[in-house]
């Protein structure tokens, strides 16, 4: 059913529980729809005028339908009590402790996601709206000693795999929605409020690409818009033995030209940045392009990235 529904890959610890409820409800829906549908069609055919000149004033006399209704009600009750409410209370709104998690602040604005890491000291520096400027979109107060090692990025969220992630969401201007479909995370970001959301990624970006890879038919000028197919799972060689495309390379126009020249019409590829933050709440004219990239890394890679970025962002 999950495949049939076309749910995207799920790379978080709690995602299966959400998917499970989606799948169960869709089974219920399918059952009801098919059941009713069969009855419906059968009735229409059997009681058409040409076959049934005279109607029966009363019609159905059995009470089966009442039992059916009760059964649906019971089933819905079970869904609620057995799945939906527990998942909400044990997963969605049961937060890990801060010691037990990587804490990140995300500040939404029209039309970008500002990410704020506390740096090595693990303490967030002060932010002040009066300091907000072009190159300090967070309004981070660099004179605050604990802010010195803080790291800020725009539209780029790096996270370690298999660790609880606790995100504090705020918005500078209007309501946005922090949605990461591949993690089954979505949380409205409401100005004037700090709302937390948490999850635990279970796959790194590399693993995700690995499992998402599929064959794409290529043709000239047909690279999917805004998304570069990359990371061919195996390299592609030209007839003279030179490498056209190596694992991890982008499939560019150029490459496609070369491949086509070599008579290759399909590549095995996956999206370069499969994991993304999609703003899910209308937030103005740039709502459609309020996209952030999420990179899930191994713990070591993540530490490395932090260290490098900290250097790079030295003020």
């Amino acid at each position, binding site marked *: 059913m999950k495949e049939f529904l076309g749910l995207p890959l799920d790379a978080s610890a709690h995602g299966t529980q959400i998917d499970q409820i989606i799948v169960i409800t869709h089974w219920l829906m399918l059952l009801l729809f098919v059941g009713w549908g069969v009855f419906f069609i059968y009735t229409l055919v059997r009681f058409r005028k040409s076959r049934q000149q005279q109607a029966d004033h009363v019609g159905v006399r059995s009470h089966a339908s009442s039992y059916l209704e009760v059964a649906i009600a019971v089933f819905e009750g079970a869904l609620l009590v057995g799945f939906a409410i527990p998942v909400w209370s044990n997963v*969605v*709104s*049961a*937060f890990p402790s801060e010691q037990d998690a990587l804490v990140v602040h995300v500040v939404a604005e029209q039309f970008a996601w500002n990410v704020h890491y506390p740096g090595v000291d693990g303490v967030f520096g002060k932010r002040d709206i009066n300091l907000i400027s072009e190159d300090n979109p967070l309004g981070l107060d660099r004179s605050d000693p604990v802010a010195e090692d803080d790291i800020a990025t725009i539209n780029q969220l790096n996270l370690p795999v298999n660790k609880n992630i606790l995100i504090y969401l705020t918005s500078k201007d209007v309501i946005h929605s922090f949605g990461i479909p591949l993690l089954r995370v979505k949380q409205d970001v409401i100005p004037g*409020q700090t*709302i*937390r959301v948490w999850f635990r990624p279970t796959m790194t970006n590399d693993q995700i690409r690995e499992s998402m890879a599929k064959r794409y038919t290529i043709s000239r000028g047909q690279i999917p818009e805004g998304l570069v197919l990359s990371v061919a799972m195996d390299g592609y060689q030209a007839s003279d033995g030179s490498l056209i495309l190596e694992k991890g390379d982008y499939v560019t126009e150029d490459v496609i030209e070369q491949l086509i020249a070599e008579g290759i019409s399909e590549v095995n590829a996956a999206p370069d940045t499969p994991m993304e933050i999609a703003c899910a709440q209308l937030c103005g004219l740039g709502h459609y392009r309020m996209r952030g990239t999420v990179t899930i890394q191994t713990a070591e890679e993540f530490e490395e990235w932090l260290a490098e970025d900290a250097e790079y962002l030295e003020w």
Partner: protein
Amino acid sequence: MDLTHADNVKKSVKAYIMVFVALMALTIVTVAISTLHLSVRAAIVVALFIATIKAGLVASYFMHLISERKLIYAALALTAIFFLVLMVLPVLHYLEPIGN
């Protein structure tokens, strides 16, 4: 009381005067209490209690709800329920943020 008869109306005029006196008295009481500067909680309870009595008097006598038809009662009961819902649920949402 059937208010379609002039005699009954005459009697009810007396009631109107009494209600008027009561409303005035309650107005004075509520203002007087407010000068005591009770704790916020107590002040709210007292003020709303008095206001409810006053409103009850106006509705029962001036608007003769006391002798109105069932149909009107039903409609107002329905309205009262939704009114309460509107007052209570948004605040509850506000007071119980995610993660508690």
